[in-house]
């Protein structure tokens, strides 16, 4: 019984983990290219969630269609924030970009709160489920998982095969050298930043499949922490590391929840969230460059 439950939870963990991983890719991309830590990461996920909510509840649009919409919105937001703020702070001390991205996150939270109010919302997109024996997986979650993997693969191909992607890769290797070779480094930064934000907002769509009623303007905070744990697990600058880090994190999160549920006198949900924080600190202590570093 225990092992069935554990197995079921682990499968759910992998499914969720893929989405977590995809949600973190943007963070790692932005850090890898611009060396900027987007502390407002969770807020962009939240924007994606609200976008999905709006499209579905008000316009009846299927969340899967919301994904590319969210991506575009995200890229737009990324460009706006890059050109108005981030670009001017690349040369400034680290404190500046940390506070700037943080403030952008706060701004987004407050704007969404203004428009949508601060109550918890959700939506019901029922498309059936599949029974795997030890666990039942709603198809919406399965679609989210597949969507995440697809996006990760697309990103990989973009980096490898397109000119823009190669340009960005060379900027990561050596920005001065890239500049000398005629690559528009500023453009690469803008592209990477908006791509990263686009990915993050799109991931918000996918994550809503896992939150029946949890959508609210302040939901981002919890995801920011998870994203950082995952990013650090996977090596802060590698989007692929982030993806695999997500899988590992999903497993750990669900596995630990099952285990904690067996300990009397504790609240498993809260303790699981505490555990993710401990993992973050432990990794930062031992190997800040990530346990699963991949290029």
């Amino acid at each position, binding site marked *: 019984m225990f092992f069935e439950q554990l197995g079921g939870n682990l499968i759910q963990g992998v499914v969720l983990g893929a989405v977590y991983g995809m949600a973190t890719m943007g963070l790692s991309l932005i*850090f890898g290219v611009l*060396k900027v*830590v987007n*502390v407002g990461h969770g807020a962009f996920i939240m924007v994606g969630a609200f976008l999905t909510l709006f499209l579905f509840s008000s316009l009846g649009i299927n969340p899967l269609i919301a994904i590319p919409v969210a991506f575009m919105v995200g890229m737009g937001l990324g460009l706006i924030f890059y050109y108005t*703020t981030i670009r*001017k*702070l690349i040369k*400034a*001390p*680290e*404190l*500046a970009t*940390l*506070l*700037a991205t*943080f*403030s*952008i996150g*706060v*701004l987004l*939270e*407050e*704007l969404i*709160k*203004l428009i949508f109010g601060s109550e918890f919302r959700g939506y019901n997109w029922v498309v059936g489920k599949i029974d795997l024996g030890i666990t039942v997986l709603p198809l919406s979650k399965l679609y989210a998982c597949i969507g995440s993997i697809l996006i990760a693969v697309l990103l990989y191909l973009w980096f490898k095969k397109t000119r823009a992607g190669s340009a960005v890769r060379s900027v990561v290797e050596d920005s001065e050298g890239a500049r000398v070779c005629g690559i528009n480094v500023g453009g690469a930064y803008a592209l990477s930043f908006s791509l990263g934000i686009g990915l993050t907002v799109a991931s918000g769509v996918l994550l809503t499949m896992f939150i029946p009623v949890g959508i609210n303007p302040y939901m981002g*905070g*919890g995801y*920011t*922490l998870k994203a*950082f*744990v995952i990013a*650090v697990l996977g090596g802060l600058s590698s989007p692929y590391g982030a993806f695999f880090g997500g899988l590992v994190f999903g497993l750990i999160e669900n596995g630990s929840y099952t285990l*904690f549920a067996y300990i009397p*006198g*504790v*609240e*498993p*949900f*809260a*303790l*699981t*969230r*505490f555990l*993710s*924080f*401990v993992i*973050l*600190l432990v990794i*930062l*202590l031992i190997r*800040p460059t990530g346990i699963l570093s991949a290029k």
Partner: protein
Amino acid sequence: MKQIQKYFPLIPVFAAYLIMFLLGENMEGMWQLMSMLLFYCALGQAFNVFMGMTGYVDFGYVAFLGVGTYGMALSITRLVQYEFLGAWIIVIGFGLAMVMSTLLSMAVGAVALRLRGAYFAIATIGVNEGFRFLIEGARIWNGSEGMIFTADLNKVLGRDAAAALCTYWADIMVLVIAALAAFVTLVYMRSKIGYALTALREDEDAAKVMGINVTKFKIIAFITSACFAGLLGATAWALKTPYVFPPEVFEIHYTIEAIIIVMLGGAGTLLGPVVGGLVYGISKYYLSIFLPGFQLLIFAPIILVIIVLFPEGIVGMLKAKTKGTGVERFIV
């Protein structure tokens, strides 16, 4: 610099606090506003000791306020049975708040302070969350139910004294903390600690090569800042409103407010947190009348503008303008 002249910069700070106190005392209905302003000034002073002087951001700062609140709460609830202690329970509460925030800051610092800027920020991002979920998860100190200790406080001090504490003396203690934090800030600034912190803030690697043990000084600033936060939580939260509830005392929005206050006023300056606290506090107060809940929406873009265009903050710009004049030595 002559010994006494070194302390001149405290004059405008203390004068501001005195004015706030007098206004609150003597004008009808002003006490509430003044107590809020003093809280923000104290928060800013405490936060400035670390973020302003080292240039590192601790996103989990509110955890120290929360821990301090628990310290006071624990003292009151656990020691109420020892009647002979009387009002000393409050003193012990402050002591416990300081000890607990020191311990937490040492624990967090041990991991986080070895890390550079961005990694440090990442490490602290979850501190307030982490600690809150530890308390809730492991059901420590009543877990997610929190503690209400109005009755205990009444028993310890007697009804009237307890009421006076909640409505008056707790705020006076906030003022004392604000003044103390300002004093310590200046002492640091004028000592080797201040020079080391400025050096490591400007260029950590060059500072190391110059012989500065950057980790040691970061720890000093971090623990100092945490202690003041703990004391502040103990009085402004535990004593003013005798209950503690994890989601409230670990709310990230206090960290946001601290950041706004310090950046607005001028990070790393002595007067900055006072100016920032006043501007933010007054704005929030009046906004709450006309546009409640809007203050963060308004201040978030303001902070962005400050970061990009005026990173020195109000006092920073004032310092530049008054350079070479007589007023210079008061604006630090």
